[in-house]
């Protein structure tokens, strides 16, 4: 086991899958010779050649559409959207095509593509290099959506996504790329899609979330345990579609006090569904209203530091919401 960066975990997953299976290839803007604008595909071009690490024209609908075509005849494309902010031109290909190919053909055809896209802010990327597009694709049946928070999960989920028989959106957090490192086995493994993970056991409050903000919750939980004697139970959804209903209900029931966190805007976000699920099934087990701490309902985060900070969650914001809930 080695401690590696989140971005390296993603890179390794692609490299290993490309070694394992000749039908796996990557395509996208600048993913070839340059190795990606973040360096996520570094070395693939050199190792596998320009035919399997394809620098595409600047056209996201084609990136998705070409990947879909190739997938339908048996390839396993991993398409990169340079920033998730730039995947909207591909929406029609993703929602009308990828998501519906199996269904509309009554299982005759399938579409095993992976679409990777970096989400989230905190890199002074401003309005169009920081967004979380989850709520746009969440709620479209036929799509699986994963959003790992750790290097371990990133590698295991990306491998699972590449091997999955259905289309998977892989939302990697660009702030996690170099900030998050953890232990990743040297051997081949996958993290199953659709399974949440208890990151921390606790009995006072439950925090449910995905991606970067969970790290704030983990830090806050340590401080709250130390300073306030509050033990937080933290559930990482990992897969946001399909949601791990069982794990969510179990985690909520465990403490009866639920805080849901994500960076995507609050209204219409994944957190709304998680809350609705709990409100539908566990109402009488709750000891406090279901709280959500999310990005504000503004179009995107400003690039200026006060604006960015105002938008983003951080340890302090999460901690005070957790404490408030514990004291409720």
């Amino acid at each position, binding site marked *: 086991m080695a401690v590696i960066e989140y971005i390296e975990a993603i890179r390794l997953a692609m490299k290993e899958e490309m070694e394992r299976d000749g039908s796996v290839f990557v395509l996208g803007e600048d993913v070839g010779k340059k190795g990606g604008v973040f360096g996520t595909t570094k070395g693939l071009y050199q190792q596998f050649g320009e035919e399997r690490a394809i620098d595409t024209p600047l056209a996201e609908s084609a990136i998705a*559409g*070409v990947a879909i*075509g*190739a997938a339908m*005849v048996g390839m396993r494309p991993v398409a990169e959207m340079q920033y998730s902010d730039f995947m909207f031109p591909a929406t029609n*290909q993703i929602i009308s095509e990828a998501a519906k190919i*199996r*269904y509309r*053909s*009554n299982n005759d055809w399938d579409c095993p593509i992976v679409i990777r896209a970096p989400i989230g802010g905190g890199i002074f990327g401003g309005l169009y290099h920081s967004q979380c597009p989850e709520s746009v694709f969440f709620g479209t049946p036929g799509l699986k959506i994963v959003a790992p928070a750790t290097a371990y999960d990133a590698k295991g989920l990306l491998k699972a996504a590449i091997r999955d028989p259905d289309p998977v959106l892989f939302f990697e957090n660009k702030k996690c790329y170099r900030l998050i490192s953890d232990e990743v086995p040297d051997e081949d493994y996958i993290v199953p899609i659709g399974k949440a993970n208890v990151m921390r056991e606790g009995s006072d409050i439950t925090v449910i979330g995905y991606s970067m903000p969970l790290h704030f919750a983990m830090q806050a939980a340590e401080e709250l345990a130390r300073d306030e004697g509050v033990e937080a139970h933290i559930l990482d959804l990992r897969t946001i579609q399909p949601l791990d209903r069982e794990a969510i209900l179990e985690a909520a029931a465990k403490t009866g006090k639920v805080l849901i966190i994500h960076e995507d805007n609050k209204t219409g976000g994944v957190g709304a569904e998680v809350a609705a699920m709990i409100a539908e099934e566990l109402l009488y087990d709750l000891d406090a209203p279901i709280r959500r701490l999310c990005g504000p309902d503004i179009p995107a985060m400003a690039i200026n530091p006060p604006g960015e900070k105002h938008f983003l969650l951080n340890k302090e914001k999460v901690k005070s919401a957790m404490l408030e809930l514990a004291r409720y």
Partner: protein
Amino acid sequence: MKQSGSVQQTSRHARLGLSDERVVEMYRMMQLARKYDERGQLLKLAGKVNFHISGITQEPSQVAMAFAMDTTTDWFLPYYRDYGFVLSVGMTVKDLMLALFAKEEDPNSAGRQMPGHFGSKRLRIVTGSSPVTTQVPHATGIALAAKMRGEKSVSIVSFGDGSSNQGDFHEGCNFAGVHKLPVIFVCQNNQYAISVPLSKQTRGNIYERAIGYGFPGIRVDGNDPLEVYRVVKEARERAIAGEGPTLVEIISYRVTGHSTTDNDLDYRTKEEVEPFKQNDPIDGFRNYLVEAGLWSDEQETKLLAEFRAIIDEATQYAERAPFQPAEDSERYVFADSSEVKS
């Protein structure tokens, strides 16, 4: 599709490498598409089905493009008027009828999709949807896969004139151009996108758009199926030879309403349509065969009787066939066993 039979050196089809049998078979497919299509219209009029969309007068060129391809290696991405195309690559009238009646046995979608939304992996017909032009990048992606795997396979994709104005046309063509992929883009220009005439859709020539992608674009008269055959065949040869894509614009005219829910007299006159109805390319092709000594009135009578029987039987079969059970409409959102292959 292998060619056989005696080659008559003087005839046009022989010069194109089409045997007498093949060219007669082409005619059969055109008529079969036509007769199916007419029945579809009648069934809608009779209230037996909810919707039908016609390819009338476009069949000869659709059949010709199919005959220029290889059904054992190529991939087909037809659009909703392509009855002539899909029948030529192996779909049956019964299959089409099952789709028209939206029955479970429909191989295209088990009656989930509208008629005209073709798909059959067995026949190498790639599943299609309603939003237009999305299939263009798919054809490019399939050609990319063929190139990556070193397969001698060509994908061919149809779409309308209106659909050529979607972004996906541009992006799909351009991507194929960059990589010199084995794909044939066929625009079936029937002069209308529902009510919108060509003059309100574009001021350019669609075939000339290929210039901007660095590959050949060719305009061909859809009423001359042998010429369509030649053009598509040459495009296929270029593709197989690694010379990249071709854009083919087939000129026709939509003589029916857009679909059975469209009243075309809302936006055009009978007088505009009539000459095109008169100049039916199926008649033209039959005349060609008759002149070539390959077809006779008796054969025509026999053919029509044969097709009537086929279509009657298919209609009855499809009408009686069961729908997909309601519960099953929740199946296949994902793979049944969503386990990861390893």
